[in-house]
């Protein structure tokens, strides 16, 4: 595995043009991961840095993110069940500790006088809309807070500022997390741009068409108009586009597939009533990240979010998702949201790996580094991942567990039986949450049988024995493209022993336990 350290060659510019022909590091992708990495490299003054990415960031996740800095709010029953999941969870805890310093760096570059950190606290509500999954995840959150000795307090839901649901959807329990807040994702990205320009990095408002090199090394990137930039190191941080970019130079059959987790959210201007002053959210819900509102400053509020694994990368919004988000925000968060003015529709693709774990590390080709697969908390983890990757690019030791190496077998965290159970629980949660109605004589246990049968049959038809997460199972069952990608990839490991079992690692990055 290659592990080149950075050269400190000077920037070489094409004659008369502003665009470089050479750089020490070319970062492909201007989302949170690419931008925070560039910032860290510039801060360390380790050579010339070019970031390539379209300024509209269309289809990107970061520009659509709620940017909750949540690790405990994101806890599910799965989060601490295995060593591998715990390692992943602790990545979030360590990332949390990086944010105060990160914000100090960015503050003076903020694009407006709206604060970048829009709140420092969260409230988690438990209502009865989201079925049993809400209850068990709510308990898992409290359990995790206690295990890691973090502050929280049970409060009367009616005391949450701004919280004003319809009476039939009101929460009967709520907890206050005084140290888990959110940032304004779009403001942070704009601040990073300004700070990077100030620090001498070059931001190119273009896309990379392909990586240039051989079977053994990557030496340059080719932009959409044919312009070439030679690079000491190429970092692919293009979110959901990363996999296809890597494959332009290197067709690795065992590179884990990533799937677009298309998500929708909206930013609205409050027109009346008491504003939210904290993140107010449900636990993570069926196949998705729960319903939440995130204050944005300036009278704006972010309402999110949906999650749907899809075959094609796009920035479309489903009408069903608009209905879902609008209706449930009014019903479960604040009924006055009905008259709020939507100022922005946010749509983006979370990079979702087949095993749900990030892909961060050197590729087998010299000079090529991959960082993606952060799914639903990549914004939060970006400053920490930037530190890790900057270390690795400099030839120093990294700070996150090696379990996230990009060329790996999928990490196994469950049995097929528990995967089926999980799928059933998520499906039921989604059924009730979306307001689906069954005939009165149809009981929940009949619905359970139906979903269980679907899951069992899906495994039979796919012919795989790796236990999939509920979202991936749903995706594979729902369309032929998805099924084929999942089955083909997993079959490359057949007869090759087993997939990676959870390692003995019990600590994540920070040993926070």
């Amino acid at each position: 595995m290659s592990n080149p350290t950075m050269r400190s060659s000077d920037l070489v510019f094409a004659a008369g043009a502003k665009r470089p022909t050479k750089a020490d590091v070319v970062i492909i992708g201007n989302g949170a991961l690419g931008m925070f990495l560039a910032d860290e490299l510039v801060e360390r003054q380790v050579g010339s840095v070019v970031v390539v990415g379209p300024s509209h960031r269309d289809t990107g996740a970061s520009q659509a993110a709620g940017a909750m800095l949540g690790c405990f709010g994101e806890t599910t029953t799965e989060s601490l069940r295995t060593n591998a999941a715990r390692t992943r969870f602790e990545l979030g805890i360590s990332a949390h500790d990086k944010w105060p310093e990160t914000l100090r760096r960015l503050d003076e570059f903020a694009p407006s006088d709206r604060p970048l950190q829009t709140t420092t606290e969260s409230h988690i509500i438990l209502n009865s809309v989201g079925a049993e999954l809400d209850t068990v995840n709510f308990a898992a959150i409290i359990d995790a807070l206690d295990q890691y000795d973090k502050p929280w307090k049970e409060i009367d839901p009616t005391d949450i500022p701004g919280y004003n649901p319809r009476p039939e959807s009101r929460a009967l329990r709520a907890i206050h997390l005084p140290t888990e807040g959110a940032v304004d994702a779009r403001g942070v990205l704009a601040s990073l741009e300004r700070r990077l320009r100030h620090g001498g990095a070059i931001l190119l408002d273009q896309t990379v068409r392909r990586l240039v090199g051989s079977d053994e090394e990557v030496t340059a990137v080719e932009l959409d108009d044919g312009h070439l930039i030679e690079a000491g190191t190429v970092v692919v941080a293009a979110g959901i586009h990363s996999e296809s970019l890597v494959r332009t130079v290197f067709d690795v059959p065992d590179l884990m597939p990533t799937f677009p987790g298309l998500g929708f959210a909206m930013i609205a201007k409050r027109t009346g009533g008491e504003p939210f002053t904290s993140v107010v959210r449900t636990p993570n819900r069926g196949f998705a990240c729960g319903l939440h509102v995130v204050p944005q400053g300036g009278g704006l509020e972010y309402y999110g979010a949906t999650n749907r694994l899809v075959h094609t990368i796009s920035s479309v919004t489903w009408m069903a998702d608009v209905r879902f988000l609008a209706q449930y925000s009014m019903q479960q968060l604040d009924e006055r949201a009905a008259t709020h003015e939507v100022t922005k529709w946010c749509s983006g693709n979370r990079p979702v790996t087949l095993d749900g774990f990030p892909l961060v590390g050197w590729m087998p080709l010299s000079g090529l580094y991959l960082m993606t697969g952060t799914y639903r908390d990549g914004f939060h983890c970006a400053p920490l991942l930037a530190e890790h990757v900057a270390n690795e690019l400099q030839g120093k030791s990294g700070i996150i567990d090696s379990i996230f190496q990009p060329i790996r077998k999928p990490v196994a965290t469950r049995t097929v039986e528990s995967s089926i159970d999980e799928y059933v629980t998520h499906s039921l949660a989604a059924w009730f949450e979306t307001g689906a109605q069954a005939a009165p004589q149809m009981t929940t246990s009949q619905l359970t049988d139906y979903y269980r049968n679907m899951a069992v049959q899906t495994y039979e038809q796919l012919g795989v024995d790796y236990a999939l997460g509920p979202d991936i199972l749903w995706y594979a069952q729902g369309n032929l493209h998805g099924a084929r990608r999942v089955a083909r990839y997993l079959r490359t490991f057949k007869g090759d022993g087993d997939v990676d079992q959870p390692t003995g690692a019990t600590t994540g990055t920070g040993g926070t336990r």
Partner: protein
Amino acid sequence: MPADQPSVADTVRSLVTQRLNLNGYSQDLRPDDNLWSLGMTSLTCLGLMLSIEDTFEIELPEEALKESTFRSINTISAAVESSRK
């Protein structure tokens, strides 16, 4: 193709019979019969697709991954033939 090799349509028929559990029906299965009407579901279609690709060692083009491709022995055979070209 040597004479003793089964034709594409014969192989497709036997995969369809097996994957869709149509053993009792197989004699009467006509090349144009609508498999969806014979009880194929989106899930059994998924397994059929994978076994077709495995058996013929082909990768159906993206645009062929749709319900109509798997409508009958004829439509499947046509998709296999065109992927082999």
